[in-house]
């Protein structure tokens, strides 16, 4: 992989390579509230696929993204699917690195007890360190 690759022919160069051995660090930064926009839901779909590719996946919830994993969501009256139970299922896909920024919780008056999954609460400084070590960072 990299500049030494021979010239590709029309977008199929990825398929020619054997990617099975490569494990990269993928980080998904969830910063948007659920339901107001679709980003949180469609982000989850990417997270699940990246797990299927056996990558080293981690999730950060910060800013309004912490609201994605708040307990007690009931979406019947807005007629939109409640996808918050999916976060509980992430463990089954071996996605266990769930980080939450402490500053974001504090700003919103939330604590770990308000969240529906086990997470590791971190400071902005700790998050900066982990982010810098990633290969691919996608923020939604």
């Amino acid at each position, binding site marked *: *992989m*990299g500049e030494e690759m021979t010239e590709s022919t*029309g*977008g199929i160069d*990825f398929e020619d390579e054997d990617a099975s051995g490569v494990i990269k660090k*993928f980080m998904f930064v969830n910063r948007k509230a659920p339901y107001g926009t679709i980003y949180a839901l469609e982000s989850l*779909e*990417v997270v699940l696929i*990246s797990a299927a*590719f056996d990558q080293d996946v981690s999730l950060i919830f910060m800013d309004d993204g912490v609201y994605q994993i708040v307990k007690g969501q009931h979406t019947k009256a807005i007629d939109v699917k409640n996808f918050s139970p999916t976060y509980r299922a992430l463990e089954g896909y071996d996605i266990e690195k769930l980080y939450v920024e402490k500053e974001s919780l504090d700003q919103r008056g939330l604590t770990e007890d308000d969240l529906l999954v086990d997470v590791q609460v971190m400071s902005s400084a700790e998050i900066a360190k982990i982010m810098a070590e990633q290969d691919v960072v996608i923020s939604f």
Partner: protein
Amino acid sequence: MKLAIMINEGVYQHQSTDSAYQFVKAAIEKGHEVPRIFFYHDGVYNASSLTDPPKDDRNIVMRWAKLAHEHNIDMVVCVAAALRRGIKDENLAEGFRISGLGQLVEAGIQADRLVVFGD
């Protein structure tokens, strides 16, 4: 270097797809390779063959098609996002193909960088 691109917003409403285009053009001019552009969320609208902007405006869809053709860029539209938003084979512009999210993850694995444009 291999630079893969992800685009999350549609045409004209947000500048992100314009920024992405200028970035890709500059990257190619600098000798980098852009093996794949992945269109997700409203980004799938970049692939609508029915897009018909005013004559004095840029044609975002055709601009992508031309660039992709000239530089062998694989332009992939996420199938799930596309179905939700009414992009199908019937209105898929030339140069684009519809496929799964795995193509995005694969691009992230294979490329040296993944650069995201959105709102």
